[in-house]
């Protein structure tokens, strides 16, 4: 239905453009048209410049009004998240101010100084003070942002071994994720894709002879205890993937042939996140959209969509082939007890081998 409507709109616009062309062509018959802008053109386009400025402001306001809830700038679920969100907010404010002012100057000048026959422009070629001002101000503002940014970056990327983080391996392959825990000893057994033995169900290439590997646990759903630092070790068996966990403000590529890492501390359990006001609104809205869509689907004899319930996700964010668009793993953040209970149910690597 939307497709049909859009095609109609597009056709309508096409006809409108065609009509405009004809009108302009007719208007030019007999007129001495040099195809160089005259005062009338300058005036019309000068006013359109102001109109365009208004359009930029309006589209900005509309986007904030209708889409303002979309950006992940609050309600983060990791310890370092608010740091990124703050920096983002500050950067956005800076951008917003500069954008508003410079676009105003640009379009206002284009309107104010639109050409008139006989007027002469001001011969004004240079001013070192002005150049110094608009070199200096960006230097100061950017210096602030750079320093804030670097502190935030170092905080995030420096892994503190003193904190005894939970070690989890994220293992990527076309087109799914696996996670491996270090088990009782919290040490991952050695692994290499050359050790993969599908007959023995050793799908991650874990070294069967490594004593540290025996108690490793391999799962397809990532569970994390709340408030305990986690250090992810990423591997990929085939092509580049990227482990993207937007709600935790976390991302790192998975590179075949090397182990990359990213650490963070989840601070909000899945259950608590579902109960936050922001998330309730979001889920309500999404389910409204899904119900609407389901009506359309059932009318066509197709299956209705399932209602949506919020879950943290790990999604692939580096082009990796055909099903790149559907490479995801559910993440569940839970209390220490729930986590331990879940972990107790899992089979260790040694027991999982055929």
């Amino acid at each position: 239905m939307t497709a049909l409507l859009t095609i109609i709109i597009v056709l309508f616009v096409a006809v409108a453009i065609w009509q405009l062309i004809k009108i302009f062509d007719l208007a030019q018959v007999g007129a001495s048209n040099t195809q160089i802008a005259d005062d009338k053109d300058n005036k019309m386009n000068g006013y359109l410049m102001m109109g365009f400025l208004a359009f930029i402001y309006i589209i900005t306001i509309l986007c904030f009004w209708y889409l303002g809830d979309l950006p992940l700038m609050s309600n983060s679920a990791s310890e370092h998240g608010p740091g990124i969100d703050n920096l983002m907010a500050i950067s956005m404010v800076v951008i917003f101010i500069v954008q508003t002012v410079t676009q105003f100057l640009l379009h206002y000048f284009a309107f104010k100084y639109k050409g008139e026959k006989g007027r002469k422009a001001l011969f004004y070629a240079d001013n070192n003070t002005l150049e110094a001002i608009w070199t200096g101000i960006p230097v100061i503002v950017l210096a602030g942002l750079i320093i804030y940014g670097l502190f935030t970056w170092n905080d995030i990327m420096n892994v503190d071994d003193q904190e005894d983080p939970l070690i989890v391996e994220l293992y990527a392959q076309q087109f799914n994720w696996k996670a491996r825990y270090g088990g009782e000893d919290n040490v991952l057994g050695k692994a290499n894709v050359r050790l993969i033995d599908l007959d023995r169900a050793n799908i991650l290439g874990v070294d069967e002879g490594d004593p540290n590997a025996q108690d490793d646990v391999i799962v397809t759903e990532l569970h994390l205890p709340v408030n305990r630092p986690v250090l992810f070790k990423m591997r990929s068996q085939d092509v580049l993937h990227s482990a993207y966990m937007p709600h935790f403000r976390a991302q790192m590529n998975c590179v075949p042939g090397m182990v990359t890492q990213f650490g963070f501390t989840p601070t909000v359990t899945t259950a608590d996140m579902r109960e936050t006001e922001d998330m309730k609104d979001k889920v309500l809205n999404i389910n409204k959209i899904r119900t609407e869509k389901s009506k359309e689907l059932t009318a066509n004899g197709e299956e209705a969509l399932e209602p949506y319930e919020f879950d943290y996700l790990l999604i692939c964010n580096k082009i990796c082939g055909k099903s790149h668009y559907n490479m995801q793993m559910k993440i569940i953040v839970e209390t220490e007890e729930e986590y331990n209970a879940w972990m107790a149910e899992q089979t260790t690597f040694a027991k999982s081998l055929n």
Partner: protein
Amino acid sequence: MSATVDTHNHDDHDVHHHKETFVTKYIFSQDHKMIAKQYLITGVIVMGIIGILMSLMIRMQIAWPEQPNAVFQALLGKWAPEGVMDADIYLALVTIHGTLMVFFVLTAGLSGTFSNLLIPLQIGARDMASGFLNMVSYWLFFVSCVVMILSFFVEMGPAAAGWTIYPPLSALPMAQPGSGTGMTMWLVSMAIFIASSLLGSLNYIVTVLNLRTKGMSMTRLPLTIWAFFITAVIGVISFPVLLSAALLLIMDRSFGTSFFLSDIFIQGEVLHYQGGSPVLYEHLFWFLGHPEVYIVLLPALGITSEIIATNSRKPIFGYRAMILSILAIAFLSTIVWGHHMFVSGMNPFLGSVFTFTTLLIAIPSAVKAFNYITTLWKGNLQMNPAMLFSIGLVSTFITGGLTGIILGDSALDINVHDTYFVVAHFHLVMGISALYGVFAGIYHWFPKMFGRMMNKNLGYIHFWITAVCAYGVFFPMHFIGMAGLPRRYYTNSNFPLFDDTADTQVVITVFALIAGLAQIVFLYNFISSIFYGKKAEQNPWRSNTLEWTAPVEHMHGNWPGEIPHVHRWPYDYSKPGHDEDFVPQNVPMKEGEEELHH
């Protein structure tokens, strides 16, 4: 200077003694003006149409995922069974759209057209330093276009690993169908393309350095020439690195080496590769890839500088600051590539370094933007279509450039890397801005190229629809990117989490389709004006630069008599003490007239 004069005489000699055939005039031409037109038609018009059509198909797929569509059926054939686009071909479209637009349209098309047309004409030279190399450069480009287009007709489809073709995805035929013959053709096409680009760039550099007419010192060069010159220098520095990356990738693909590959298990078997690293490829790619952004952008900014000054009837504000900022951008552009790799797994310390250098580049960019705005101040603005596109360029350059502050900040990049936020950012700052530069250039120099004027009213319609739609497409896109929506997804329907972005995607696609229609207006205007446009006068925009002192009719050697000598910088617009509001560069100084500000 005597050497230069000698060359001129020699050229005159040539002009008189060679009879031109159809083949030497229109096909294997060595004349820079004809080569510029060849680049314009092949690079900008033909490849541009293909690239834009692809982007519209991508947009339709995103807005109405997995729905049958007659357009897909007609254009994609077997890759859209019953009109539903295949997921592999979606990635191929994304890949080839990026490749065509970045390299073929905005590198070869933009530089090829305007550097070729304007360098000899604006510096006062009979032709390029080597007409033969110039011809070879064009025909290599033509061959690379043909190879790239032909890759759509191979069994398994064209390259589909993204325009950055990161290995191992691009290296292993079993990783995706597009990494078979299609990828080989992509690499071959790009290798030929780079050879073409290098020949062109060397020619531009040598011409600017050696063939300037008498009086045309480096500080009297129009900013267009400065931009083209520095662009060529960046190209010569960075393109060979991409060539080496492409060659090493060919070795890995076809000869079993392991430069970029190690420890791979795919489709049930372990491959022999050991010791290489995809991260090395990323470094090599982005060592070109980032300067490439400025290879695309600088010529557009150069064109804008010229057009804004001419149509404001005012000197460009801060001529020296503009040159310095071009130089600063060129230098910095070669040491910022790592900001594409913050989360690639490279040492986080490098991330800090690249954040620092990246944000520095905002400073010369800001200087340029402010100088453009000040040039408008108290001007007498002639709103020709070229001027509108130039003002539009400054507007999108600011909007798109500002979000670079977020992406260049390693800490913030973590959460917006590879999302639609990136797509919105680079399309505005380099895609749309550079395209505006191309359009501005075409409207402005059409009389020089074809001896006729383009229709201004169609130009106005073209600009205003395009300008509104460009914001309509890319402004909301920032928001869905910040919601965490990854780019290059065939459909988002597997993520209920992103269902609330679906409506916005439809709005964006509608804007994109309307923008596509507006380009038909341009195409109609362009083609019909070549044949039926109003005949142009010699200097329709009352401009100062030397190309407008050459006769409207094209001739070998550009000027019938002696090459004009230059007595002043190119921006003496509305200079006090002169009756006219422009004083061409070849007009001698009046007695007691001061040469100001350069």
